[in-house]
């Protein structure tokens, strides 16, 4: 039963509103950088737009979705009204204020540093303060998730924590710890320079600290999607989760191995030793484990649904699935994109293979396919699934929803596959324009045109999504009942303490962070004379 519907709706609406705005910017960037558009008279406009797009899509949008979905899970899975709803509103408003504080300097061109900050580039302090406020707002959510689970546990001693809440809290702990890296970078390194207290910055250390955040943040984005795989998809298509323990182990593995792997983002950086790069590369490879466990468990769960619906044969059951169900469709698209994106990710994390695509458009294609594709399409599915329970109104036009999902899938494939390809050809990322008249670049023009067209397909789909949600708010009232999650084939009566609590896994996560990040960060901190002069965005040259 959802009590704080307004709170959850506010998070989702704000998330999707800023998402739509950032989507427009993204499409414009694809266009202006492609041969279809002229050169920009001012490349700074591109970086301004890119900063806004990245900041919204990377920090604001997924955080709000995770928070809104998290509150919904806490209330419906635990069956208790949210403890600390007033705090939750405080967190929400902190994010609103933070997002506005950050976006004003970006819009004015005072913080075109891209969402990854890139010191020694230094923008307006308000940009960084805004980002910090967003993170602080989300930490309130982390604390609330922990408190709500504790309250429930006291009332239900020895009972297994519902899978959705177990995973939700795991995701919140992952976020709390992974955000520390960027928080340290912002508070100790960037803000003193942005405020004018210092004029030099250790860019190498900043990059290592940011890598602490930058990879695990992806798994934080992924958490709502994985929670939906396990606890929404089987229920929505009439199946059961194949294994509750396997699900718990997957989320635990994400918690443990998502953190100590970020240095694979700095394979090209000289300030990090090759030994640590290798260790991080190996641990990144371990992330394939929870993903493969999930692929196996979810495929088995879906097969259960198909066989319950009368599916037969080794593969014939696929046709028995409810393909007209938007959640089914979104899930299938998500898995296809997760497959391609995951395969690309294995190339990125490999110390040797990465050399051929490091800092190329391949990387941009990769994270758009994984995040924009596999993850965001499940955010759509979550919204479609949850909306009737929040608004008390049912969607009437499932066909339109399916069209929206198809457009998103096709658009994302058309956008990202050529993107990967030009990356292999060597096209660098973070460029405001390319001279396609150059014979060396001319062969890439066609791929880039396709990619830009895909961007507009995505924009169309995004607008359609907002339209569907808005129309859903005006549909005739219909009681959707209580919001429920999938049940396992063998619903657990008791669960081992280790699989019912997070302490051990959080301890392992922190321990591995110390072993894998401790020395590089300490060495760079103690090494004097490695700072470089800050480059202030917009300063007169």
């Amino acid at each position: 039963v959802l009590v704080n519907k307004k709170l959850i709706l506010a998070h989702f609406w704000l998330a999707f509103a800023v998402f739509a705005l950032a989507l427009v910017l993204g499409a414009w960037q694809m266009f202006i950088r492609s041969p279809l558009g002229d050169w920009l008279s001012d490349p700074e406009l591109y970086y301004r737009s890119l900063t806004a797009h990245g900041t919204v899509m990377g920090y604001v949008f997924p955080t709000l979705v995770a928070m809104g979905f998290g509150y919904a899970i806490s209330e419906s899975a635990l069956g208790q009204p949210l403890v600390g709803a007033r705090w939750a509103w405080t967190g929400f408003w902190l994010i609103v204020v933070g997002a506005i504080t950050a976006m004003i300097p970006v819009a004015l061109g005072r913080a075109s540093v891209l969402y990854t900050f890139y010191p020694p580039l230094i923008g307006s302090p308000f940009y960084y303060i805004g980002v910090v406020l967003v993170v602080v707002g989300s930490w309130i959510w982390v604390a609330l998730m922990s408190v709500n689970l504790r309250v429930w546990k006291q009332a239900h001693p020895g009972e297994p924590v519902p899978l959705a809440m177990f995973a939700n809290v795991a995701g919140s702990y992952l976020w709390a710890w992974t955000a520390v890296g960027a928080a340290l970078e912002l508070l100790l390194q960037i803000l003193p320079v942005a405020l004018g207290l210092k004029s030099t910055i250790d860019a190498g250390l900043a990059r290592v600290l940011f890598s602490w955040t930058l990879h695990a943040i992806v798994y934080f984005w992924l958490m709502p999607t994985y929670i939906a795989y396990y606890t929404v998809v089987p229920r929505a298509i009439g199946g059961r989760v194949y294994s509750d323990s396997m699900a718990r182990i997957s989320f635990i593995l994400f918690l443990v191995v998502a953190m100590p792997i970020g240095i694979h983002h700095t394979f090209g950086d000289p300030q990090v030793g090759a030994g640590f790069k290798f260790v991080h590369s190996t641990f990144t490879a371990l992330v394939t484990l929870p993903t493969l466990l999930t692929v196996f468990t979810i495929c088995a769960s879906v097969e259960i649904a198909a066989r319950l619906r009368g599916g037969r044969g080794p593969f014939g059951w696929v046709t028995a699935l409810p393909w007209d169900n938007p959640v089914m469709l979104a899930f299938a698209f998500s898995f296809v994109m997760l497959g391609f994106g995951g395969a690309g990710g294995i190339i990125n994390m490999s110390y040797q293979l990465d050399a051929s695509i490091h800092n190329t458009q391949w990387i941009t294609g990769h994270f758009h396919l994984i995040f924009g594709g596999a993850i965001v399409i499940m955010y759509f599915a979550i919204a479609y699934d949850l909306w009737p329970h929040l608004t008390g109104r049912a969607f009437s036009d499932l066909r339109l929803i399916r069209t929206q999902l198809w457009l998103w899938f096709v658009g994302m494939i058309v956008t990202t596959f050529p993107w990967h390809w030009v990356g292999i050809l060597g096209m660098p990322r973070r460029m405001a324009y390319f001279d396609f008249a150059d014979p060396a670049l001319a062969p890439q023009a066609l791929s880039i045109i396709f990619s830009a067209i895909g961007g507009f397909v995505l924009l169309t789909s995004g607008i359609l999504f907002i339209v569907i949600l808005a129309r859903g708010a005006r549909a005739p009232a219909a009681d959707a009942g209580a919001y429920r999650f999938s049940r396992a084939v063998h619903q657990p009566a008791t669960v081992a303490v280790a699989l019912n609590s997070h302490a051990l896994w959080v301890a392992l996560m922190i321990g591995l962070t110390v072993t894998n990040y401790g020395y590089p960060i300490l060495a760079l901190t103690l090494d004097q004379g490695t700072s470089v002069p800050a480059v202030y965005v917009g300063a007169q040259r």
Partner: protein
Amino acid sequence: MSERELFSFRNPYFSVSVGVTLAILVLTVIAGFLVLPYAQTGIKFTNAWDAICSAAGLPRRAAPATPPAPAGRTSEVVLTSSTVSRPSQESIGRGATLAQRCAICHGPTGISRADSPNLAGQYAAVIYKQLLDFRSGARTNATMSPFAANLSDQDVADIAAYYAYLPRLPAYHPEPQLPKPHVVIYGAPMRGIAPRRAIRSVPEGPTPRVRLGRTPQRHQRADAQHRAGADAAGDRRSGRILRFPTGGSRQIGRLKRT
């Protein structure tokens, strides 16, 4: 099982998860810090600790080396934003008188009739530096060195101010004053036309270099050789001109701050 027994080796979840994690960590550390460094060809380590330090990314300090002594005299000219900027009328007048002796080669109005460099409108800093270099011997020339030998600092600044004050010849390729067509500025990627910016690799705006417009080629070559040769030889004999055509003081401020 209570929460207290979670962190106990009697708990199989604890022992297995900690054990497996530690095993993976130890194996990858051995591979990353010992096996792989030695597997690299072309790198010799004195011992295992050396290999570990290398893999950990421990920076190696370069051996302290004294910079090589320059082959000849190097330029000692120091230019700041106040050296030659905003000359007084008196300074220009004094410069005009002093420049009489230069007129035989460089022309009475700074436009040479003797195949010497045109100095009218030349940047003051350029003349200032060259004259001081001739005087100090950082640059030598059979004709110029004797002329510069007896000039005072003030004389040099005045002559520089005077020549900078003179109107220079119109540029060799005067820019058309009409607004540039769209296609010139932005190009037309679909038609294979590159923007002007891509063709002209030189940045827009004033450049802190010698004005060479209408300078006889012989002198352009000599000047270029003087600079390039010195740079290539690594002795930086000509030094570097720090010149800021506009907003000089702000630039100096930035340099100091950083």
